[in-house]
């Protein structure tokens, strides 16, 4: 598809400044998933605009925070011990191997297998997920819809503590609202951290691979719909969301 780069760069500028809404935000979402990844010019423009967005912070005068801030941060760091927790014993781990999850896995495998022929850019991820699911001891985590989220839209998580890789997949994931995207969160004792970049389903299919994640530090997974951009401090619950327990 031939794209109007003047129009695209207008959207990328607004996107980098977090100032899009409505149809523009939806169009930016589409471009970011369909056009930008394959367009060197747009990738460079987006990277430059995002770097500018960071540098613009320097236009403000620095200010002294209260002296209590660092001790408060230290205390918060201590509240979620990241070390010394029981490591997982198997390479491929998951919990909630419920019948729902197993059924979901079977259907998912079929869909992912069929998509390998016509989705080369995702084939590697799909193969990794299929391989992980079929590995000895692998059990998918059923990440269940919450609240008003469509009940048929469950996601499946498979993670490898050994390789530090987490996979997320779905076949009936609803589109987020315009200007919104999905964010993966990992939780530990009720504290949540965003992991990886926000993402969008393609025709309802999610194929996500995140490397260098120490899944053994977490006990829960959450996927939430958020306003596109940087994630908030904790998962939002007013839109689509899914959650599951990790062992």
């Amino acid at each position, binding site marked *: 598809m031939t794209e109007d780069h*003047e129009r695209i*760069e*207008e959207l990328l*500028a*607004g996107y*980098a*400044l*977090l*100032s*899009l*809404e*409505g149809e*523009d935000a939806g169009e930016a979402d589409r471009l970011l998933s369909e056009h930008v990844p394959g367009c060197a010019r747009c990738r460079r423009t987006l*990277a*430059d*605009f*995002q*770097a*500018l*967005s*960071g*540098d*613009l*912070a*320097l*236009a*403000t*005068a*620095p*200010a*002294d*925070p*209260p002296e209590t*801030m*660092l001790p*408060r*941060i*230290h205390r*918060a*760091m201590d509240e*979620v011990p*990241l*070390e010394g927790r029981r490591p997982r014993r198997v390479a491929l781990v998951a919990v909630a191997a419920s019948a729902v999850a197993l059924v979901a896995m079977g259907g998912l495998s079929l869909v992912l297998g069929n998509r390998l022929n016509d989705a080369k850019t995702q084939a590697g991820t799909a193969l990794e997920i299929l391989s992980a699911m079929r590995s000895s001891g692998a059990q998918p985590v059923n990440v269940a819809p919450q609240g008003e989220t469509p009940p048929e839209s469950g996601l499946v998580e498979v993670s490898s503590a050994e390789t530090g890789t987490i996979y997320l997949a779905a076949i009936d994931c609803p589109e987020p609202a315009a200007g919104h995207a999905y964010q993966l969160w*990992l939780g530990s004792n009720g*504290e949540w*951290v*965003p*992991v*990886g970049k926000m993402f969008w389903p393609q025709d309802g299919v999610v194929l996500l691979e995140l490397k*260098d*994640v120490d899944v053994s530090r977490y006990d829960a997974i959450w996927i939430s719909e958020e*306003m596109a*951009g*940087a994630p*908030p*401090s904790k998962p939002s619950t007013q839109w689509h969301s899914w959650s599951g327990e990790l062992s």
Partner: protein
Amino acid sequence: MGEDERLDLELHRRVAQRDRAGFDELYRRYVRQAYGVALRVTSQDLIAQEVVQDAFLALWRAPEAFDPARGGFRSFFLSLVHHRAVDAVRREERLRRRTERAANLEPATDEDPAEDVVEDAYLRVRRKEVQAALGTLPAAQRQVLEMAYFGGMTQVRIADELGIPIGTVKTRTLAAMRKLRVTLQEE
């Protein structure tokens, strides 16, 4: 890559290895600038403190969120703070209160209250470059840029506030970003 960027990467590596001393050093390098932008965007010291605290905690808990292949740490972290600040004010629905402030162009100042602070001395050079670059923008372009960035306003809202077509807001925003991009890349 300059010495400061290399030090950022080294400190980030230490944070990823759960090195608290490394975290504290990274905190001292960036906290004043982070708090400055959080205050400017939120206009609320308690919210700004929460934004900055959450940003540093996010860095500690998920250091893998920063990918050196995608750009420098400074931009990554200050963007993180800015995004959280914008998110916070939108959630708090305090946008309208700050609109008047954002619309009043706050002139980039040559004064740098951080002159005597060693910890963020290396930011001083870039700060002056950014402020100078902003100063080269036509007033109309700078206005929409600052309303978006520091006011946390959407383009639709900016058009409404200024009484101009949204297409004009988009055009001015892109022109401003392009000019800043060229100016700052020449530095």
